[in-house]
């Protein structure tokens, strides 16, 4: 191995500390050890990070068996470190691919821990009221085909709004992101044009011309906040925290649905009832339910099938069980979607298989 990773780490630490896009998670206190000295560390997705930190804060205070630490860094980073066995658990918004799972000798168990909605947040000063975006229109906005706010198709869907003749400035993610995957997976599912003319589906995209980029959900949210006429995709939590207006999107059944915890939970429940895959990798790129918000996603904890230390396995299982049960109301308080009962029971069954 070359000296590259070390160099990169040092440099990125500097860059990260300089950039103000540092993700809002409070720094985890690693000096406080549990009496048994057992420390369980995890890393990954930034979207559920505020929730995981809150869970860990409460859970560490509640018991003394083990001390939990979680570090954000992105879904991609979480999967990478999980495969390299540098952490005890990972976290990812796009789960793991079959190839990635095959690389883990100790086995992989995907546990859905929370869920979120990708929303289209926008910034249009002077426009008050609900902005409705039909399915084909928001695909075309991100393809760069609809580029004025007073485009006839947007006006037709929003006769009640006085839309300005302003440029639509799209804001997207610069870094590899589970949120990007969920969003592009949705766009690719509802629009064949997205696959042929657009950038396709993935965690890291080459967006069509003129899009502004930001690092992390917070970076995108911030860019939307300071740019008039902008629109971008972020997780619901970040939009609501910054008080950004959120567009109402048209679902498969043709209804316009506002994203909130209730519509998100119903969407997931219906999807899980229709069929929960064996490995719990449930993607809902285009939910069918009448009142479903169209872009929802689970966020997974990545656990190993086996742990060499039994104490660690026990501690992790206890903690995740707590998170799936007592942790869900906390999730709702923070603006995440609480998991519906059928997904929680499937997750608990998967958890039992860990040794």
């Amino acid at each position, binding site marked *: 191995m070359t000296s590259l990773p070390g160099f990169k780490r040092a440099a990125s630490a500097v860059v*990260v500390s300089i950039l103000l896009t540092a993700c809002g998670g409070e720094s985890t206190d690693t000096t406080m050890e549990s009496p048994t000295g057992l420390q369980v560390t995890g890393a990954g997705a930034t979207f559920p990070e505020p929730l995981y930190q809150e869970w860990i804060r409460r859970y560490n205070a509640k018991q003394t068996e083990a001390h939990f630490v979680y570090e954000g860094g992105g879904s*991609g980073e979480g999967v990478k470190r999980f495969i390299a066995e540098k952490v005890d658990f990972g976290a990812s918004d796009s789960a793991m691919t079959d190839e990635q799972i095959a690389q883990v000798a100790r086995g992989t168990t995907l546990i859905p821990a929370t869920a979120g909605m990708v929303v289209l947040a926008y910034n249009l000063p002077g426009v008050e009221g609900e902005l409705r975006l039909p399915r084909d229109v928001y695909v075309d906005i991100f393809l760069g085909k609809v580029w004025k706010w007073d485009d006839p198709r947007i006006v037709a869907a929003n006769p009640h709004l006085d839309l300005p003749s302003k*440029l639509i400035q799209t804001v997207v993610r610069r870094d590899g992101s589970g949120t990007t995957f969920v969003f592009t997976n949705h766009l690719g599912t509802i629009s064949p044009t997205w696959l042929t003319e657009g950038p396709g589906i993935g965690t890291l995209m080459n967006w069509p011309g003129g899009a502004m980029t930001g690092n992390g959900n917070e970076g995108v949210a911030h860019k939307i906040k300071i740019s008039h006429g902008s629109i971008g995709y972020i997780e619901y939590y970040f939009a609501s925290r910054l008080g950004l207006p959120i567009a109402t999107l048209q679902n498969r059944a043709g209804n316009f649905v506002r994203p909130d915890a209730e519509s998100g939970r119903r969407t997931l429940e219906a999807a899980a009832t229709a069929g929960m895959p064996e490995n719990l990798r449930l993607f809902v790129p285009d939910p069918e339910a009448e009142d479903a918000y169209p872009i929802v996603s689970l966020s997974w904890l990545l656990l190993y099938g086996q742990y060499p230390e039994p104490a660690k396995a026990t501690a992790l299982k206890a903690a995740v069980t707590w998170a799936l049960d007592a942790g869900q109301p906390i999730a709702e308080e923070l603006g995440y979607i609480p998991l519906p009962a059928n997904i929680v029971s499937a997750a608990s069954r998967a958890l039992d298989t860990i040794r």
Partner: protein
Amino acid sequence: MAVNPFQHADSASSISGPPSGSDYLADSIFRVIALSCASLIVVLILYILWEIGGLALPAMAQHGLGFVSGTTWNVGSQEFGVLPEIWGTLYSSFLALILGGTFGVGIAIFLTQDFIHARLAAVFRTIVELLAAIPSVVYGLWGIYVVIPMLRPVAEWLHSELGFIPIFGTELSGPGMAPAALVLAIMILPTVAAITVDAFRRIPYKVKEAAYGMGTTRWEAILKVMLPTASSGILAALVLGFGRALGETMALAMLIGNSNQINLSLFAPANTLASLLASSFPEAGQIEVQALMYAAVVLLVITLIVNILGLGIQQYTVRKFEGKA
């Protein structure tokens, strides 16, 4: 009769004397220290070049010159091109140079050509130099919360009235070339102003007296005598300012909008090489890091070319206006 002509110097009572052994020693130690410090700088630059070049080598071999002319940066398909970033870097620096250079030279004239009392000029000069002490991230925040909202109505008007001119061709939604260049201009202002002030100060007073003696007005003296005489120093100031603008990272990463496009419009978002490096590095995988290192090499080469060009122009003006060989 041999009398030592240096007898008087040899006596211990005199304050002057031939250099002692320790003097020679101190002298040679200082020489070694100075030489090693100077060569250390050269070695450091070569080492940085070697290290970055080494990391960039795989990307250089793979992408070749297509890297410089390519316009996509797609990690997924491993296509890397930095033309939009090169464009953004040069365009923003050039705009900043026009603005910051004009104001910097203007300030220097104001401070040195007896427009205000010398003591007041010293106060002003200190204030201008204080600008250099403001951290770049503060400039970025100031740009976001002050410059962008201030610029927005102006940009709106320019776009609606003069939108047919390409440089006003788009609307300013927030971050973009104009706010970035404006803030960059303020950032290079102290560099340009301080060095230009020194250039004016170096002109012997008799030159100005001679000009006035020939009956020139103040402005004739400034424009036709002082400016050409100081021109090599002013050019040095501009080259240094341009170099600073090329490498500026933080404020630009916050203000330019990080958009991978080439647009002549002042109000469109763009990207620069330095902000591409800053924003992509933390998440980059090995392949992308190599490409980023290549981008760093490109930035170094651009800076080098600018400095060499600046040096050439400077020598030309020295010959032309200052009458030195």
